[in-house]
């Protein structure tokens, strides 16, 4: 029994770290339940792990230092910062697409607009205050834009949909003002941008989808002299659903 326990005990840490294979974990579970010496040892080690987990979280950065770092990072070129950090946080998977997006930016005016829209979207998500008017109520958000932008628009009713309105902010595309609305759907963030059609003089064509390799899905259309963009990393189906709500309105 003692001999047997020695071989168990060699693996005890690996067991408690949850790094044994599934079968070995099961075998170990069974052994610890019947062997008081291994059980006592396991208990002591678990206690040590827990104590260390608590004691190890000992140092917190000062508020001043946090501000300093935030400032020093924000002082860097806006695009690379916002893209890099947001994407890294959200998902590393998006990186390849981002690089592609950056390259595409210079290619054509259409791609340029998409790239700007993507940057605006990402910069918003990276911001500590993503929206200037915080409200889930469209009747609060819509009037907020009055006098701030040179046009008016309608926001759709979201009852019985998966979408929630987060709020809105003013935005600029090539020096012309517009509205940005932020929506959530199942933890994904969606931006809806609205500009005057004449301020984005681009030949969109019939099929104006996002550039290939973009990490985002985009839908755009024109309605009543306004140009709408819906952009997000969520599925094209979600984007289409939200776009439909706007178009119906």
């Amino acid at each position, binding site marked *: 029994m003692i001999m047997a326990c020695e071989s168990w005990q060699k693996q005890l840490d690996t067991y408690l770290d949850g790094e044994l294979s599934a079968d070995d974990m099961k075998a170990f579970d069974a052994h610890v339940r019947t062997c008081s010496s291994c059980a006592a*040892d396991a208990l002591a080690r678990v206690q*040590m792990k827990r104590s260390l987990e608590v004691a190890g979280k000992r140092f917190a950065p000062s508020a001043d230092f946090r501000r300093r770092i935030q400032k020093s990072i924000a002082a860097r070129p806006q695009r690379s910062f916002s893209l890099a950090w947001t994407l890294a946080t959200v998902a590393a998977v998006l990186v390849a697409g981002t690089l592609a997006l950056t390259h595409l930016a210079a290619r054509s005016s259409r791609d340029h607009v998409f790239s700007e829209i993507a940057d605006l979207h990402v910069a918003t998500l990276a911001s500590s205050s993503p929206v200037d008017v915080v409200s889930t109520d469209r009747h609060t958000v819509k009037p907020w834009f009055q006098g701030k932008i040179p046009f008016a628009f309608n926001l759709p009713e979201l009852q019985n949909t998966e979408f929630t309105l987060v709020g809105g902010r003013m935005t600029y595309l090539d020096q012309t003002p517009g509205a940005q609305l932020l929506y959530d759907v199942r933890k994904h963030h969606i931006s809806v941008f609205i500009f005057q059609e004449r301020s984005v003089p681009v030949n969109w064509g019939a099929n104006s989808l996002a550039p290939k390799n973009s990490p985002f899905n985009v839908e755009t259309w024109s309605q009543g002299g306004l140009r709408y963009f819906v952009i997000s990393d969520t599925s094209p189906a979600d984007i289409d659903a939200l776009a439909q709500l706007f178009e119906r309105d």
Partner: protein
Amino acid sequence: MPLFDQLYNFAHWLTQNREEAEDLVQETYAKALRGFSSFQLGTNFRAWMYRILRNTFLTSRTGLKATVTVPLDAEDGGPELAVESETPETVFIDRSDRRALETAMENLPVHFREILLLSEVEEMSYQEISETLSIPIGTVMSRLSRARRHLRILLRQRLQEA
């Protein structure tokens, strides 16, 4: 900022000094931003950040001093610990011993301290630790085991002194 609090805590444990920890974290973010394109798709972002921080620390003055004064890798044939001083495997500790545990951690050689922090505080898997420290998984296991044993010895000494 991703991982800010955790990286700071880790940096403070390594440097044992607030100012140096701040410098270390600041440099880590600067390097990460500059080198973001070298971040490999599909690899672990957290491990990448910790690796930058740790490598920055190891090449700093404090880091060099810390690694010169202790055996770098006992598992690679460095001086062995006085294992015989540890009779039973177990040390029971409770809440009131937190200060003793902190002191024991402070006195632990930096390579042991960091692997324990990654494992117990950051709850990294062996695979993640292996990526962070750029060592094979087998070495992760043996170093972790030595680190724990060393900590138990130091802790028992502290508790006996008390």
